């Protein structure tokens, strides 16, 4: 009986959800479910997809270098040290810029590379998502907005970088590092204690 009722529930719920989502155009990703696919070029013109990283843990970091909340984590070297820690464990760290041309945080490929070297950052690649397709697929709302995807392509973490939602640099050391804890748990083969936290920061400047 139950297995027969389920498809109905799902259908009815999807119908309802669909009606509700029609206005938002967001398909919100869910932790514990396969992460949304993407197909975006980086600053070198190379294409990156989620499928190609099957077998590796992937971290996504949405950024906007002029956003004070992003500045907080780069000026304190917090972001760079996390990138290095993850690199050592063969994590694929993808920094994503979804700012539309003409908005805050939008950069040319050259500027993006310059920012990486100036800030001594160490992402595997910086993806240029000018039209916001990837950002919308992940419902990325703010910068910095962090995601952890396990080696099987399952979304394991979505949310803020840490627990104190301010732009105050001193708060980095005081905060509970939600994202780092989650990434470390995934690398240890565990489910993170907190899989969803409050993403805080500046609104991602999407193209309308």
């Amino acid at each position, binding site marked *: *009986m*139950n297995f*027969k*009722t389920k498809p*109905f*529930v799902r259908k*009815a*719920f999807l*119908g*309802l*959800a669909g009606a*509700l989502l029609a*206005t*938002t*155009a*967001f398909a*919100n*990703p869910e932790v514990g479910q396969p992460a949304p696919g993407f197909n975006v070029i980086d600053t070198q013109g190379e294409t990156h997809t989620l499928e190609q990283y099957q077998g590796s843990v992937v971290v996504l970091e949405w950024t906007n*270098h*002029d*956003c*004070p909340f992003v*500045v907080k984590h780069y000026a304190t070297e917090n972001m760079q040290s996390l990138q290095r820690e993850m690199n050592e464990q063969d994590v694929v760290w993808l920094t994503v810029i979804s700012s539309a041309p003409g*908005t*805050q945080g939008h950069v040319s490929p050259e500027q993006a590379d310059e920012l990486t070297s100036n800030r001594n950052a160490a992402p595997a690649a910086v993806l240029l998502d000018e039209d916001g397709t990837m950002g*919308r697929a992940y*419902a990325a*709302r*703010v910068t910095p907005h962090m995601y952890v995807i396990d080696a099987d392509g399952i979304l394991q973490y*979505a*949310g803020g970088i840490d627990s104190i*939602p*301010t*732009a*105050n640099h001193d708060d980095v050391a005081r905060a509970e590092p939600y994202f780092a804890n989650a990434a470390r748990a995934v690398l240890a083969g565990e489910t993170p204690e*907190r899989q*969803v*936290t*409050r*993403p*805080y*920061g*500046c*609104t*991602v*400047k*999407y193209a*309308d």
Partner: protein
Amino acid sequence: MTVFQNTIRYFVAIILATFVMTANASESEIVEQPHLRAQLIAEYSQVEAGQTFDVAVKLVPDAGWHTYWINPGDSGLATVINWQLPEGVSVGSIQWPIAEKYNIGHLSNYGFEGDTYLLSTISISDSYAAATLPITAEVDWLVCEEYCIPGSATLSIELDVGSPQRAASHIDVFSTARNNLPETADWQAYFDIQDRQVTIIVNNEQAASLDNGSLYAFIGATELVEHQPPGSIQSTESELIIRRDLNTYFHDYPEHFPLLLVNDKRAVQLEVHVAEQSAASVNAGSITSEPSSLNLTTVLLFALAGGFILNLMPCVFPVLSLKALHLADHRDHARRDALWYTAGVIMTFVLIAAVLIALRATGAALGWGFQLQNPILIGLLALLFVAIALNLSGVFQIGTSLMRLGQGQQQQSSFATGVLAVVIASPCTAPFMGIALGFAIIQPAPIALTIFAALGLGMALPFLLLGFFPLVARWLPKPGAWMNTFKEWMAIPMYLTTVWLLWVFGRQAGIDSLALLLVALILFATALWTWGKGQLQPSSKGRQMALSWLFIAVTAFIFTIAIQNQQVGERSAPTSQQWQAWTPELQRELQETQPVFVNMTADWCITCLANERVALETEATRALFAEHEIRYLKGDWTLQDPRITEYLANYQRNGVPLYVLYWPGQEPKVLPQILTNSIVREAVEQAKQSI
């Protein structure tokens, strides 16, 4: 402007802000920061110990820029004030002005544009002795247009301590500030989360009346609801129902949060609490299971004792004590009378139990006293009690003819007295016998019947003793003229019982029906009075009898109207009319032949209540159910009925709500946990088509 230049600017501004000169003044310097000017202003220039007064942090962002509300929305940051106050001075939290919603693409923020006053109330203790009161506010904000700039300022004032003096130049500031505040209300409001939907119900007529099409509900909790989609707002006469999508980044249940309701006329802020099934309801749920651990002998003894005690109940005692005196008077038939009486009592108890068990089997959720849920029966009982009382008062006689009854009829009379005793005892047993009867009900039929028989035996016990041990009768006082006086006094508890019955009737049927019933009672009393006059005056007996029959006829007529009137009243309150209580037996029986809709609900389930208000107990769904002849069954899990728990488990649920549609010849269909009229309609039409 480069990052570097910006940083220098903030730095300089912060340094300036920190070293602003403070004079004894009720307003601070205005601190200029990028895109925002900040100032601290006190309502009083001079304050005294023991006083409470307001201060305002005034934020003036550039045109088009905004700061944030307590819940900033998808991004942003609420303004934070850290106070530095001397010992003995305390400050309350920010009284947030009425927020606005800003949509940025698919995301939304809540905040304030233009001159923004953040009011806080400062309390000075009675023992504050210093000559001045220094107040410093460290304010952190995020000011945004399309992009955002964090800022902060340290704002200081110093007030003189003396007799309180308002700062004349700030009167306008504070009246403006207060005009921007929402009203605060203590309306009851609860929320819960089901199926990634947040449902809030505000139980208040005024709240419901805010729903005029322009209402927006600002949710004061971060990451509880999706901010951009407006969700739905619906209202009944006395409830406001808000439904919103659960936030993608929802992580923790808030215990309570502020809710700001804003329409084009009013802005009201209240506190919403998480709906939890109270500890009390869980405890109450265990009562039903506890007595089943009692052993049968104990229960039978309790029933026997309980039955005995019934004799002392105010509605039974007057009748029985007279019967006892009568028995004592006729020693020759005493044993036989006592046995017949006992038989009458036990038979009636067992009969009621049998009816109860039969009704239970068909699924009606009934307990002892179920007959008291029927207003027609209550009305008839009220008439009966008035008749008994008037008889006791001596208005008319019934005994005169009984005296002349033959032996066989004597036995019938004793039997009938037994029946009567149980009938008139029932209003008293309902409130007092709950648990033992509750136990009986959940037992297999033979045990339940035995328990009821024991109750009857207990009730008849005094008479058995009288009949078989005449010595007991010696303890009874000798008959005499006092008996009449005693009898007349005994009328008083009967009148009082009538009052109680009328109260119950009134609650069930409404004040109009109650008034009609009272008219019927007066006419009935008149009939009995004329009857009594006829008994006293044999010459005019025929006329008096005719008159009393006339009155009885009118009584019956009025009584019928009273009952019908009550049914009209019930129809206008559809929630009580439309559904039937769920039992597995009733469901199984009905679903064979016709469609059945099962709703598992609980009083503490906000989603359940909201669904009932907006999707089930609505005109549309009522018409839909009527059209397709769908029986609507409702199971109440408020006390965690184990049968419902089992039912939920069958659908792999451990909580309510659960909605299941049964269509003959089809698998049951589970509906979503969030319902609308159209979801119910679609489910029904789909089921119908797939026949």
